């Protein structure tokens, strides 16, 4: 009776991934760039769980677990860097981070 | 010469540093309070006992003969620190049998209770003992106007107090006997 299969979840994952990617590319607020990164990681999670369910194998789900760990570490370090940067430059916009330009 | 003694404060012991025994004893204290007799007064039913000399709402009083005591000398108006009292003096008509010996009586007498600070100066200064701060302590109203007590209200609240001196009666008899001062 269910007609939703792996490919539907994959489409969602790809959409979510591309949305996140667009955010990383287009947004200038570094906080939002970090959030978009999280979106991309989430898209991967969806795909992994769908595959894991499809192939009746825990490996994908376990990888989701690790991705979450990495994401948590990434966010904390990223935010700490942002705070440090903000203290120096009073801005969180990417176009103000031009120390290495020219 | 006073010698200052520096008290050594002992370092906290381990159990004291966790604060847990202290918390426990605090909990004990509050718990024992649960069952103690309550000290609250159930206000509208139970009234507090008013001590002597209490300064409540200022009122005007009449003498035992039901006569107005105030002669509108306006001393209270002058002495009132927040300027809450306003008196419009008025004459007593000549044909008033009872009170013709006094020259004046207030035509209007207003005390603004939004200003009054219950200091009791008016009572203290009144030569005729006509104004008293009585026991009434709860006063409320819906508008500012309502809280300006006019003469009628002041007399209504004041009522009649037993007069120790019967000043007017004395004055009247003195006058009748011809030895006016």
């Amino acid at each position, binding site marked *: 009776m269910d007609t939703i299969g792996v490919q539907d979840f994959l489409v969602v994952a790809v959409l979510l991934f591309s949305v996140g990617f667009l955010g990383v590319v287009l947004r200038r607020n570094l906080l939002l760039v970090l959030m978009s990164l999280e979106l991309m990681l989430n898209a991967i999670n969806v795909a992994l769980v769908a595959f894991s369910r499809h192939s009746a194998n825990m490996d994908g789900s376990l990888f989701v677990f690790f991705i979450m760990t990495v994401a948590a570490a990434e966010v904390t370090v990223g935010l700490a860097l942002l705070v440090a940067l903000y203290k120096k430059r009073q801005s969180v916009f990417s176009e103000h981070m031009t120390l290495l330009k020219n | 010469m006073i010698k200052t003694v520096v008290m050594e404060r002992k370092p906290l012991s381990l159990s004291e540093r966790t604060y847990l025994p202290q*918390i426990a004893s*605090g*909990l004990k*204290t*509050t*718990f024992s*309070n*649960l*069952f*103690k*007799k*309550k*000290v*609250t007064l*159930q206000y509208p039913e139970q009234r507090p006992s008013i001590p002597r000399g209490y300064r409540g709402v200022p009122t005007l009083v009449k003498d035992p003969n039901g006569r107005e005591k105030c002669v509108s000398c306006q001393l209270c108006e002058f002495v009132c620190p927040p300027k809450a009292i306003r008196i419009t003096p008025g004459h007593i008509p000549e044909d008033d049998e009872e009170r013709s010996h006094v020259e004046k009586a207030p035509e209007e007498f207003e005390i603004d209770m939004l200003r009054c600070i219950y200091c009791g100066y008016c009572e203290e200064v009144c030569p005729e003992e006509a104004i008293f701060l009585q026991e009434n302590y709860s006063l409320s109203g819906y508008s500012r106007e309502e809280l300006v007590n006019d003469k009628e209200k002041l007399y209504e609240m004041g009522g009649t107090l037993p007069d120790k001196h019967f000043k007017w009666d004395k004055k009247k008899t003195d006058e009748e006997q011809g030895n006016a001062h």
Partner: protein
Amino acid sequence: MDAELMQMLALKVTYALVMVSVVMSIAGYTVLAERKVCAWMQGRVGPNRTVLPFISAIPFIGPFLRNLGLFQPLADGLKFLFKEEIVPGHVNKFYYYLSPIVALVPALTTMTVLPFGEFTNAEGFTTPLVLANVDLGILFIFAISSLGVYGIVLGGWSSNSKYPFLGGIRSSAQMISYELAMGLSVLPVFLWVNAPGMTGSGLSLASIVNSQEGTAWLVLVQPFSAFLFLVALFAETNRLPFDMPESETDLVGGFHTEYGSFKFGIFFVAEYAHVVIGSAIFTTLFLGGWHFLPWVADPWAPGWIGSLLGVGWFLAKTFCLIFFFIWVRWTLPRFRYDQVMKLGWAKLLPLALVNLIFYMILVTYLDQASAS
């Protein structure tokens, strides 16, 4: 969708509504209990004036109920409903309206996985009384209750004024800090219950309760875990001595300074709903849930009377814990903000870790000992 599914859905929705109303009324009466108990502890009598004309006219019982203030929550609710709704001009409207709801919903959602009793039918088949008997009970509760902080943070932020803002910031930091200690403090419990030779299964709350039947309650087995959990629970429910987001002496009213009328009422009820749910969770985890006493088998026979008594017993334990919450509130002063942070990170977290490691070693040792 077929009829059977619809029927089941309708039944679940009905159960959920009943449970919401029960929890909400318990929360309402917890407010009353707070006022009464604090009054008693301070030598006062507390609310004793509200009357319902019909009930209060009954001789003896009526005045007694009135003196207990039993109709006060009703009057409070009505007052909140009919108060003028003032929205300050400087607030962020959308979030301002959203945040009380966000504060209340997680508190009410966590109760779906909370087992409050069990029913044994004639065949001896036992089912726990719970809206959704999920395997992940405690994790689900942690996950959902961690969302409750958004109501406070958003409320503080959207008020666009400094005291609520400070309250919001404080509460977000506090929540993150104590969630860790809370999670770590219950891990030994599940470790113990799921150890080889024990009866527990997974993270389900019902199995935790049933593992305490006829033996020691977990509070006696693991007093230290229980203590840590209780402290973290106080912090997570924002109760004194940890009520940083509110702390009325330094932040006026904390995160809800700009709130009035019914929106404030929702915040208020949400706080107490958190207390009620928190107490219930503590009861399930450490106080044996609906089972009678440690080392004593349930005196009631299976069947619906037995399960009703069990639920009543569960509620009684929960109420005792709620009383404890109130009791502590009116005994202890408030921590300073830096003390809260220090306690969370430098004391509670290491202690929880040590506790966890101790029980890991103990469980392994016991397993080895029983194997050899």
